[in-house]
Structure formats: C-alpha cells, structure tokens
C-alpha cells in the first residue's frame, strides 16, 4: 500500500486548480488521479471561448484553459496519474485504483473529490417512441465534433436549453447543419442568457419554452420528433398541440448531475437536491478528511468558479492534514423561500462563510437573505435573479445550534 498526503480525484478545472493551490501552500505530497488518458477534463472538448475571464482576466477556449493549468502542474512537478480510475474508497481514506498497471491501493491523508458531473440521458427523462440511432446527449455530440471530427447529423432538433445544447446549436450551424429549434420544458431557459444571445438569436434559431419532445420517430435512424406544448406548472403535454419536426439528429441538453457513486461507497452523505456531497463551509463531506468541490459537488455555470471553489477546498484540506481544521459545531443551512439549493448544507459556527445558491424562479429586484432565527447574518440585493445563474452571498459567523435559512425575498 502506498501512503500519500493529499489525493485529488479528477484532473479537470477543479482538481488541477486544487493541486496548484496545495503546492502554493507548501503541501508537497500531492497525487492527482485521472481516469482519462489525458488531463483537462471536459475542457478538452469545449473549444468555444469565454473561459478564463475570472481566473486569467481574458477570454480563452477550454483547451487553452486546460493547458494553462496542466503546464502549471508540470512546472511544479505535481504527479498526475492518468488512465487511473478510483473504483472504491474504503475506511480511513484507502482508495482502490484500477489502471493498466493493475489494481493499486493508496492511503490518503486527505481526499479532494473533484470528478465532475455527468449528463442526464434519454433514459433519465423517459421519452417514449422508437430507439433509433441519431439521439445524442449534447456532450457526446460535442466530443464527436470537437475531438473526433465526426458530424452527428445534418438536420437537428435540440431538447433542453442547457449551455452545452446552446453551444452545440451554434457549432452545428457553423459547420453547415440545420438546427430547427430548441425546446425547453421549463418556462425559463436553463443556460446562460449570453448563450441564448450569441448561440441562438445570432443564428435565428427559435427557442420554445414550455415545450417537449413527446415522441421519437424512425426505425434505424431517427426521422423526426413530435413536439408538444406543456402546461407551465404540471409540465403535462397539452392535447392537440402536437407538431412534427423532421430531423436526423436529436440532441439532449436536459441537465447535468454530479456523479457521486464513489463517495456514496465511502459512506458520504449525499444531498438529494444537488446530487453532490453534503458539505460544511470547508467543503468537507460527512466523512472527515474527504472534501469535494467543482461540478462533483454541485453544477457550476463556469469552469472558473469550479476552479475557485476547489482552491478553497484545497486550503481546508491542507489545514486538515496539519490537524488545524476546526470543524466545530454542526448548524444546518437550509434552502427556504425561492431558493432551490444551497452549498454548504451545514456550517461549524467558527467564522464567516460564503453561501452558493440557485433561485427557483426568474424574479426582479430581490434580496437574498441569510438568517438564523431573528438574526440576519448576511444579505445582498440583486436587480434580477435567474435560475441558470448561481448566486453567492457572504455571511457572518453563525452561533448556537439553530438552523440557518437562506431565502429570496
């Protein structure tokens, strides 16, 4: 068995940023485990620009953002083991890792889990109809085009308005395919507003809210889809609103979900709303010494934010292995009025903290308030809150044991 200081799972924007921060803090025994054969994570296939505005102060593409991180890792001599899948985390932070070398057992002083998220697939949203070829998740279509130079099809319909779906609407159009429309079940788009403008509006691709695909047609290859309008509250298709759209490609961009099977095996408590670990303000999970950050914790809008969160987790993991992390009490932080979820889900009460949250609805002139009983710990005013944009609000330290509520009022 190999003994290591801090083991980071995942070499994407979160994991790599965490490793660099640890090295800056003087932690010398760092090991990154990456299941793919090269580092960079999802950034490798995100060739559009808009990355790095926060971290580097300029707009660069995903591959460039990844290579800046990887160069830094190389310069600092941080070990990154690619082609290495963590298949189990047992007691006392003992990892079982599968690779071409066989199975390795590694004991970690602390673990930072930053393995990203997965796309919700067709199965997860249960579209009735045939099972023909030509139905892809947006990320799969993106990999075909940007990594392997393969066109998914020539005439596409996109279901769901997540950012990757919007980016792919533009990418397909630029490469000569026709994108008939984007359909979104909700009454608001899922992706960033700027992507609606520069990926759909610029190319006159219509976005239909409160619409969904109710049937897929075609035997070998998809030939078309039936689309129906849905009730804005129940999301049930409205009879008589069906419309047929011929297509050879259906792209699904219906949400991202953190994949935490590996942390569940380690006994980490998972938050039912985010799908990620339940963490405190130090990004430590319910299992001491196991931290989580980035899209594995909750889905972020930007790689830059995932990197920043992982750096914060790294700072706490560094304190932990020194025995200096004061985990303190266990005060619950709950999403209240108008808030769909919050991170962290609990705080120690030892100091100020930052809450990340998402709104349930698009609303104007709202205040986000962090309250413990009668005491307001923090608040911030927003001219507009949108579910697709994560909100962060700073809070003073909590005290006692009463629940903290985060609400939009």
């Amino acid at each position, binding site marked *: 068995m190999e003994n290591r200081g801090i083991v980071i799972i995942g070499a994407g924007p979160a994991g790599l940023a965490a490793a660099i921060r640890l090295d800056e803090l003087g932690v010398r025994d760092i090991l990154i485990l990456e299941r793919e054969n090269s580092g960079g994570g999802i950034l490798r296939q995100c060739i559009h620009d808009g990355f790095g*505005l926060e971290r580097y102060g300029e*707009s660069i593409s995903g591959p460039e953002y990844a290579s800046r991180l990887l160069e830094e890792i190389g310069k600092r001599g941080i070990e990154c083991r690619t082609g290495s899948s963590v298949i189990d985390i047992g007691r006392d932070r003992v990892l079982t890792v599968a690779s071409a070398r066989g199975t390795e057992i590694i004991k970690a002083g602390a673990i930072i889990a930053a393995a990203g998220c997965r796309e919700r697939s067709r199965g997860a949203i249960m579209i009735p109809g045939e099972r023909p070829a030509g139905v892809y998740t947006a990320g799969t279509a993106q990999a075909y085009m940007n990594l392997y130079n393969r066109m998914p099809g020539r005439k596409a319909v996109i279901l769901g308005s997540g950012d990757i779906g919007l980016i792919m609407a533009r990418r397909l159009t630029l*490469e000569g395919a026709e994108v008939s429309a984007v359909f979104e079940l909700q009454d608001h788009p899922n992706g960033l507003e*700027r992507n609606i403008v520069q990926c759909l509006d610029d190319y006159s691709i219509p976005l239909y809210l409160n619409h969904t695909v109710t049937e897929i047609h075609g035997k070998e290859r998809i030939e078309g889809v039936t689309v129906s309008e849905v009730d804005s509250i129940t999301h049930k298709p409205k009879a008589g609103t069906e419309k047929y759209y011929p297509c050879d490609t259906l792209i699904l961009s219906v949400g991202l979900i953190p994949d935490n099977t590996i942390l569940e095996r380690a006994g980490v408590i998972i938050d039912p709303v985010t799908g990620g670990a339940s963490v405190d303000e130090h990004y430590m999970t319910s299992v001491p010494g196991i931290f989580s950050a980035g899209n594995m914790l909750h889905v972020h809008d930007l790689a830059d934010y995932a990197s920043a969160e992982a750096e914060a987790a790294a700072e706490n993991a560094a304190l932990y292995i020194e025995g200096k992390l004061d985990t303190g009490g266990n005060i619950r932080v709950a999403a209240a009025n108008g808030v769909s979820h919050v991170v962290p889900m609990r705080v120690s009460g030892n100091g100020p903290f930052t809450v990340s949250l998402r709104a349930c609805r698009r609303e104007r002139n709202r205040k986000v308030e962090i309250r413990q009983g009668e005491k307001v710990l923090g608040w911030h005013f927003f001219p507009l809150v*949108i579910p697709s*944009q994560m909100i962060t609000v700073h809070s003073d330290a909590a005290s006692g044991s009463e629940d903290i509520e985060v609400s939009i009022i």
Partner: protein
Amino acid sequence: MKRYTCIVCPKSCEIEVSWSSAGDLEVNGNGCQRGREWITNEIRDPKRTIASSVIVEGGEREIVSVRLSSPIPRAMIFPVMDEIRKASVSAPVTAGDVIIENVLSTGADVIATSSVLAKED
C-alpha cells in the same frame, strides 16, 4: 428604449439603451466599462468570435481546435467559416500557432487552441 443582454462575460447584464432628446446615447444596467464598450459597438456593428476546427495532416489527431484572435463583424461569420473549412495544416501544431493570418482582411487571425503532435510511423 431597447434592452440587450451583454455577452462580454457570463454575468449577462441586462443593458438598457436609449437616446436623450439631444440625441445622446444613454446606457444603463451595464456592470462594468467593458459592457459599455460592448453595447456601443453592438448597436452599430455587432462583432463575434467563433471557434471551429481545422484538418491536421500527419497528426496523431485528425483535427486541431481553433478560434479567432479577435471578434469579427457578424456578417463575416459564414464567409470566415468557409475559409476555416478549406484550411489544413501539417503536424506538429502548437497551441497559439497562426493557422490563417488576417482572415478575409478582418484583422483577426485564426489561431490553434490546442497542440497536435506528429504521428509516429
């Protein structure tokens, strides 16, 4: 008054534009100076950057990702895409390499955003 969504950064500020009775441009809602510059351009001559890929000959991968070094007028997007589609490059390619200089005299270069090594025989 006209409303725009700023695309400079993911904050997606809603910018309101109107003209005073004296004919001066009034801008509200932008969170930063870059947003003001963007909207001043956007109402006259909207510009965008695009990303695509270019065929690599003799590389360990078929394509290399590319982007424009600076935004181009929206009307030039498809003509520039035609140039990108026609282009090819020999491996090795290094991120930052200029693939097409000053494409269609737009002032923007098409640059590689990743590296592709030459294929070993």
